[in-house]
């Protein structure tokens, strides 16, 4: 036994384990995508709810890391799985390599910090983070101005998926693999069989699926509430915040007694609306109600679609021709300002 081969950090067996699991993950990603579409159909949305299955992509990485128990195994698995998906024509192209690698890095970080403790809560937490990372990464890469609320819901959905499929299902599979002893797991505790057997608690599939579908439906309903009903709850209000003595929520109806009529001409870079009369509440009145601090000098007008415009606070406070009108939400009529300042869908006024 005194042979002195060049010692490699990962033995051939470790590399093969990584290859086998990444290949299987890559081969099954089509299947997981197909299941994701089923979930979308079941919930009734074109996309998004499929995030409920994103933990199934992390499952492979966690399984490989749990079997090999060496730092770097998860990252290598993530990288290989991503590369294979890229080379077999994943619709996200090269991006999938980075998404998958990021998941591996997160799992490696989590497991290394805890020195590969074989515990269910740990697997669930890192599985959750790894699964959620894909939403964040896609959001960063393809920022398409989706509302924060929707983004957060997707993160929560992916995180729960990571808990269920990467954490719970991953740990259960790992225990079963160790019990069946199909692979010779690197130096585990002396009697993993008896230990895991005593601990083996599988979720009743029907109970779990009931809970899961209930939550999907609740989340789906939440999405619709956010998207469809939010405008109807109070479409005509905006927050007035920042360096003010009295931050409050402005509602048009509360100020309707202060309405005035101004005549304004909209001159945009392309748009032109000839002078016409607009009826609305003076912006100065709305701002004064919040009692701007003495040092404040700027006003940031934010729209719900992410657009913003900055005004000089002093100019605005002394300008009674700038009004807020009701036009498909709140809209700023910035008389004598160019078209870019006529902000639509005003959601908040920030004074600084």
């Amino acid at each position, binding site marked *: *036994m005194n042979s002195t*081969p060049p010692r490699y950090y990962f033995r051939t067996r470790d590399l093969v384990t990584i290859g086998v699991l990444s290949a299987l993950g890559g081969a099954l990603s089509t299947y997981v995508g197909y299941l994701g579409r089923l979930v979308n159909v079941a919930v009734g949305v074109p996309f998004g709810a499929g995030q409920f299955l994103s933990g199934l992509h992390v499952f492979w990485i966690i399984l490989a890391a749990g079997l090999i128990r060496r730092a770097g195994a998860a990252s290598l698995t993530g990288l290989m799985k991503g590369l294979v998906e890229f080379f077999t024509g994943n619709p996200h192209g090269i991006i999938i390599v980075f998404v998958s690698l990021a998941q591996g890095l997160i799992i490696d970080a989590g497991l290394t910090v805890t020195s590969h403790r074989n515990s269910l809560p740990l697997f669930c937490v890192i599985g959750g983070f790894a699964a959620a990372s894909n939403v964040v990464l896609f959001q960063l890469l393809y920022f398409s101005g989706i509302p924060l609320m929707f983004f957060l819901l997707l993160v929560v959905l992916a995180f729960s998926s990571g808990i269920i499929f990467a954490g719970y299902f991953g740990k259960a599979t790992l225990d*079963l693999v160790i019990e069946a002893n199909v692979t010779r797991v690197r130096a585990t505790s002396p009697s993993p069989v008896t230990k895991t057997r005593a601990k083996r608690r599988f979720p009743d599939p029907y109970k779990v699926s009931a809970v899961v579908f209930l939550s999907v439906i609740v989340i789906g309903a939440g999405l619709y509430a956010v998207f469809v009903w939010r405008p109807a709850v109070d479409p005509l209000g905006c927050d007035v915040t920042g360096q003010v003595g009295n931050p409050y929520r402005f509602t048009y109806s509360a100020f309707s007694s202060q309405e005035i009529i101004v005549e304004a001409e909209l001159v945009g870079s392309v748009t032109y609306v000839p002078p016409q009369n607009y009826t609305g509440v003076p912006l100065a009145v709305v701002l004064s109600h919040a009692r701007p601090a003495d040092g404040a000098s700027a006003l940031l007008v934010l729209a719900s679609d992410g657009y913003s415009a900055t005004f000089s606070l002093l100019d605005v406070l002394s300008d009674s021709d700038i009004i807020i009108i009701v036009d498909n939400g709140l809209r700023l009529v910035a008389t004598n300002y160019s078209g870019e300042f006529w902000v639509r869908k005003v959601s908040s006024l920030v004074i600084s």
Partner: protein
Amino acid sequence: MSSVNKGTSSSAPAIKVDDFSFTYGGSTEPVLHNITLTIQAGEFVLLTGPSGCGKSTLTRSLAGFIPHEFTGKSKGTVRIQGVDTRTLPIYELAKTISLVQQDPDSQIVTLNVADEIAFGLENFQTPQSELVQRIKSALATVNALKIKNRSTSTLSGGEKQKLALASFLALQSPILLLDEPTARLDPPTAREVISSLVQLNQASGTTILVVDHRISPFLPIASRCLLMNAGRLVFDGNPSQLRQHPSILQKLGVYLSPLENTRFPLSRLERDESPTLTVREIEFSYPTTHDSSTYGFALKDISFAISSGEIVGLIGANGSGKTTLLQHLIGLLSPDRGNIEINGRPVSGRPVSELAREVGFVFQNPLHQLFERRVLDELLLTSRHIKKPAPNEAETRAKSLLVDFGLSAFTSRSPFSLSLGEQRRLTIASILVHRPSLLLLDEPFIGLDYRNVNQMMTIIKQAANEGAAVLLATHDPAIVHAYCTRLLFLSEGKLLLDAPVHQAFSHLRRLGEAEYIPPHPDKSASFREVPK
């Protein structure tokens, strides 16, 4: 032939094992007990013994993977060309001794045939200028030059087996170990592979050790036979000595040919008015988008029927359409033309999961059809879905099947922790609980010794006696000979033969397909005289 010795110049024997014992880590039961064995350079040795006797462990020990790759306790020494395997790293040993394992799909590691052959040579830093020639000559040895530029994923099973062999032959190691090199091959391809081994042994003096359950093809060519049982070497002599002790062999589950006198009286074979399965003129071709070279032949104008109580053997070359035909019978594939009826009802238009009530299907690899966490649940899976029989009855039946199949000790074990033989028995037990009237078995015996085969067939026969019709696809003519009442022979998608077994074998000889006739035709001849 045993003294040809060009491979080595040293006088040390090719393999020398001294009082070697081994116990896998995590186990207390030794797999090998005090093995002592010397094999001289240039010998052609056959090693056989029942499933689980330690044959594979012995080959792993000879190639040095034990103790280098597998943890455990060992005692004694293994020397290859005089060198203790423990003192050399595994890749140094690999230059001297090559182990070709059973499943080619678990040995092919590259995307192209030429890359696969080059893999080992490249690792050993063979200069690029030599590689092209070495790739060609390795493929030529196994008579497979024409696949040189193919992608590995499009190869057939037989081509994969040849590739796995050639990729080791390219290394030109003086000692070659082969674990069941012909188990997945149809008889003609098996003969081709065996003759390249003989050629290698005679021309280059390569020392060869073949491990196999099917020993008859090797008896005429091996210079020496080894027999193992329960981790011990129990026989070491020449093949003719082995033939003289058929009873010892039978006790060990190794048969020169499988059990005889097990078939049904011929009266069973009379044509039935309402057969369980009727196939009428079906035709099928794979969609053209598929790479035609990777799939079996289409089915051409196939008609036959199987009645309750029959056990029908389905034989034919790799890719002749056996699996394709079986997939039609349970609705996994639909014929382009023609129709299939089970118990008088057409198959087409019914979902597979519904047909499962009447048809039980066993796939080649048991791991592809085990789903549950406990053995008992595995048996109850189908009845839970099709609600037949009632839960109590199903559980009673499942438990009695577990006893019949010798699996009752594993009732609450994970199916994945069982041995291959146990898993195969479990897959058959799992389709019997709801008593389907048609059983379709696709190569269920690969890698099993005849004792296991016999145990399984006894229960299948019992199911047939209770009224099931059975269709069994296999490469092994000896099994058909021993257990089947009738034989279907497929060739390139056509049904060339449908006849009672004893007639079928003489037809096959006339068709020039003598390889599908089991050895000892003298014995099969005697069956012609079975009274009606």
